[in-house]
């Protein structure tokens, strides 16, 4: 995995898009973010290749969620930029940003389902917003198809408050992929779940990647889950990516903090 921090920036392409190496979907370059005196991200540079699952591993408060929000343009970096298929999403606003976000689906830590809407309406929401040409019958069919993909058949009429944590996450996942985006971002998808449900959610993430060929970015502190689903794992420590390797190589890393972090899992297993 190449760290792009030392690379020189490519000049803008003639059509206004910036050039990116083949096979890359997202490229973050030199991201710095401060909240008051708290310097959360300290020069993050990382590439996300097309069709792969990258897990960003790190402890609580290491800046994982902040990094993810930069990838989709929910936060703007103080320094640096995020390129999504050549578009500098960090500079976009208004309609252009809205259009760029159409490439993404996002699964939130606590699912972030609209609690005033039923499960069916939650999953149908992106379709009703962005595919106004679809009839209600077609929308219902697509919603049922996506819910079935995650074992949630017949739950359309239920409300988020009636669901377990695992079911809420799966509904969040169904909502994130209903528009069949190219990129899916997962914010702590297995936090707060029991081991069986965690494994089930891992399978869902793998299934979404296989069936829809999406590029997945997962932020997590769940080491077992990360090694289960990742093509590559980046370790975030004190606002920097200190390692970024495939799981088999990362396990033998000599970085002291990463070794300490991984020993909490592999030491016991």
């Amino acid at each position, binding site marked *: 995995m190449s760290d792009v921090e030392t690379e020189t920036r490519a000049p803008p392409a003639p059509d206004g898009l910036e050039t990116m190496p083949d096979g890359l979907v997202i490229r973050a370059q030199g991201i710095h973010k401060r909240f008051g005196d708290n310097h959360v991200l300290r020069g993050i540079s990382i590439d996300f290749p097309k069709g792969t699952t990258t897990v960003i591993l790190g402890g609580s408060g290491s800046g994982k969620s902040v990094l993810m929000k930069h990838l989709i343009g*929910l936060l703007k970096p103080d320094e640096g930029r995020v390129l999504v298929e050549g578009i500098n999403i960090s500079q976009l606003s208004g309609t252009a940003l*809205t259009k760029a976000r159409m490439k993404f689906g*996002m699964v939130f830590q606590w699912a972030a*389902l609209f609690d005033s809407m039923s499960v069916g309406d939650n999953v149908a929401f992106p379709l009703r*917003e962005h595919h106004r040409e679809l009839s209600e019958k077609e929308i219902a069919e697509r919603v049922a198809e996506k819910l079935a993909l995650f074992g949630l058949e017949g739950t359309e009429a239920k409300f988020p408050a009636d669901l377990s944590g695992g079911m809420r996450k799966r509904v969040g996942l169904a909502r994130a992929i209903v528009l069949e985006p190219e990129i899916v971002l997962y914010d702590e998808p297995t936090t707060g779940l029991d081991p069986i449900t965690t494994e089930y959610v891992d399978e869902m993430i793998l299934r979404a990647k296989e069936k829809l060929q999406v590029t997945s970015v997962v932020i997590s502190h769940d080491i077992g889950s990360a090694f289960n689903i990742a093509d590559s794992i980046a370790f975030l420590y004190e606002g920097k990516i200190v390692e970024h390797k495939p799981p088999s190589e990362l396990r033998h890393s000599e970085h002291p903090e990463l070794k300490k972090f991984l020993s909490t899992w592999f030491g016991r297993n």
Partner: protein
Amino acid sequence: MTTESAENTATTPVLHWVRLPFERIGQGVIDLFVEVGHLTLLAAGGMAWSFRRPFRPTLLLQQCEYIGVGSLPIVLLTGLFAGLVFALQSSIAFAKFNAESLVGATVVISLARELGPVLTGLMVTGRAGSAIATELGTMRVTEQIDALESMAVSPIQYLVVPRVVALIFVMPMLTLLFNYVGFLGAFIVSVYQAGINEGTFMGRIYQVVDIVDLLGGLFKSACFGGVIGLVACYRGMNASGGSRGVGVAATRTVVSCSVSILVLDYFLTTLLLMVFE
């Protein structure tokens, strides 16, 4: 506290304590201007999004129903008792000058110009403003607003515009109903309790009250509606810190809106008097 200010405190404690109140006041003024700036930006964003597709009539009607119909009982109750009490006090006071015939006109003109818009605004603030701040605050802290943005939907267009527009439409209607029940209350007390002749009561109203009094009050109430909507949405969308943050947002909404209504009332009244008197 910065290192520099800590050193100053250590070396010149008296100067520090002299300076502290001025710093606090200065910071308060700066914060006020920052908030007014953010509110102005939110209003500008709301204006821009109001005219962009997709239009959301269903959301607008839902908000009109929630704010308008939902606030109706409290507004009618307040209006009725405001009219009853005002007429009762006026009839006692006016009796001292043998001017009971003016009770109806006085109450109606006060309701139309001031009491209707202001009291309706305060009631809607307490009922709908705090509810909007709580709802949006909860959506903010549970990442539902982030989810909206991640799905390429503008929270300003989806959440703010329907609520602010609904309040601008609904507030004058609620004020009109407030005025009507207030008038009924005044009529009941004046005619059946104070013994004022109903013909005299009504005649003086026709003689003194002008349609401009009513329309000016309705204009003010529409302005109050816009302020309540903007402040409540701003507080809710900027809530942070979990359930406590949501509670703080709701409380600050009620305080900010109540103060804003009273301050704005003075300036709008001045403006209306300049235009129509």
